[in-house]
């Protein structure tokens, strides 16, 4: 277990990785990656029970994580590398021809830690529920986690899955919503108002935990611990994680353009200056 300060340091290094990966690839999705970096670090370094050095596709006896909004590969890959799934140097290959680090996660290329392709939005919750049912059927008491974008909740399949998990009491499952209020064409309010998310999940028979500041490591740790404590009680658990897109660099924060736009080579030093290199070192 890492201390909160250690986790914060890792998250800072991961934000540097995200910026350097996407600028080098001249493509990718830095905004949502930066916003969820704290959650991803908290999960992979402290919350989840998993063995990155010995990845197995069936994940028996280990917690599983599915990132449904697959476009945030920069944070997925960086965290996975830093926690030990594969060498950190491999981050240099992000989005390059022949890489295991595809633009969106794939199993086809054999990257340890990836169990399902994602990127076509709205599908990860169904997959997570299926894995959770599989764990129940095989007597495996570990947990299944999924992460979703808030804009992704506009996909109809999400609500099929939400209804299923509540009605069928899938209580070994925690879905986290990255509530950053941004999507490609504007704010979620402009594009499609999500309404009262907490009330919606509760109406579908879920238990809900709200993390008011998902970019505060301690709040994330406490909130996820609370979510874990709510499992096994006959209902799935939703975590509404309020974050800021592009968190960590002032000119990116809260700007929806950075969903899918990268920092230019010219601006990269300015961005990195706000996230000093840590003792972990750049890739």
């Amino acid at each position: 277990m890492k201390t909160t300060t250690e986790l914060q340091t890792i998250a800072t290094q991961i934000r540097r990785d995200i910026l350097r990966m996407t600028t080098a690839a001249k493509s990718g999705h830095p905004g949502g990656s930066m916003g969820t970096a704290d959650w991803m670090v908290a999960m992979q370094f402290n919350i989840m029970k998993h063995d990155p050095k010995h990845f197995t596709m069936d994940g028996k006896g280990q917690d599983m994580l599915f990132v449904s909004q697959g476009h945030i590969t920069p944070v997925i890959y960086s965290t996975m590398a830093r926690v030990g799934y594969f060498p950190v140097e491999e981050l240099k290959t992000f989005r390059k021809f022949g890489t295991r680090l595809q633009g969106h996660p794939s199993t086809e290329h054999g990257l340890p830690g990836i169990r399902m392709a994602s990127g076509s939005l709205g599908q990860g919750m169904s997959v997570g529920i299926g894995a959770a049912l599989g764990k129940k059927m095989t007597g495996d008491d570990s947990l299944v986690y999924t992460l979703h974008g808030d804009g992704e909740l506009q996909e109809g399949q999400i609500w099929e899955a939400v209804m299923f998990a509540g009605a069928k009491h899938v209580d070994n499952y925690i879905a986290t919503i990255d509530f950053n209020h941004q999507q490609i064409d504007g704010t979620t309010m402009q594009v499609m108002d999500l309404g009262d998310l907490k009330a919606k999940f509760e109406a579908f028979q879920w238990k809900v935990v709200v993390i008011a500041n998902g970019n505060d490591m301690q709040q994330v740790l406490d909130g996820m611990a609370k979510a874990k404590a709510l499992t096994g009680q006959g209902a799935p658990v939703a975590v509404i994680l309020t974050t800021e897109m592009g968190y960590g660099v002032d000119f990116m924060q809260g700007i929806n353009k950075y969903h899918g736009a990268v920092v230019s080579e010219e601006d990269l030093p300015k961005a990195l200056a706000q996230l000093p290199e840590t003792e972990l070192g750049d890739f």
Partner: protein
Amino acid sequence: MEVNGHHYINTFILNSKFLNYFNNMRTYENQKSKELRAGMGEGLVEAGKQNPDVVALTADVKGSVKMDGFAKEFPDRFVQCGIAEANMVGIAAGLSLCGKVPFVGGFAEFVTGRVYDQIRQVLAYSNKNVKICGSHAGISLGEDGATHQTMEDIALMKALPNMTVLVPCDFNQAKAATIAAAKHVGPVYLRLGRSKMPNFTEEGAPFEIGKAQLLNEGSDVTLFACGHLVWEALEAAKALEAEGIKAEVINIHTIKPLDKEAIIASARKTRAVVTCEEHLFNGGLGDSVAQTLAMNCPTPMEYVAVDDKFGESGTPDEMLTNYGLRAKNIVEKVHAVLKRK
């Protein structure tokens, strides 16, 4: 061709009374018409007994797709997903991660076309060990009309890398194909009709995925058929035999991977091909055969299929007859292709 045509007519005239001694026409009897979906249902129970990891999911059509037997036998291995096919496909993919062998059952249109992207992302691209059982496929569904009569499903499913596409021809073969699908590792689409159709293949015969099934040897024309049209092709071969035309009948129960060797070998021998299927021209068995022949041994070829239109309401018999999917239509196409030989 003309020379050959006369040759066979002469042979027929000369040997007509000895025909039963010399021809190779094998006879197939309809044991009793049964539904292919019911064959899948029985096969699923059998697969469930053989492998405790086999599980089944449906979207509120348990009885319609004949999964009720499995659900009764193995209630803990059956997942009722409600009317939500997209979610069902994702759940199946998740279950497969834990070592389960999920069979997803629904109406063919709604477990293929409706959820194409889900199948593409989490089953085909992610190469998961999930079997999609599409019942009510094809125009012989009948009265429900075109909303439910998919004739594009083979095209959709065979277009996906990693996907295996099975189109068994009768009840017995649907059962065997289901058991074979459970043993195969990887995503499979199993196409099944709703209506009672002749059941004529041997009960308990093994089903070898990817291996064409020679039903009748012939030398003048090859009929490559799949699904319900295999019986029609056999009926057509009988009628052709009476005309002195020896039709080879090959059941292509696996559209993908395609048994190209068998197709090429037969086309080289007969030098005339007719494909027979309850599907659109575009993207079905005919296109798979045409592609194989075009690249390996260009051969005159005709399609018995539905040409770029939707179906409508009617009895299964009326549908097959009015949409030109009968033995007599196959015979007509044989006559046409022999003129091009």
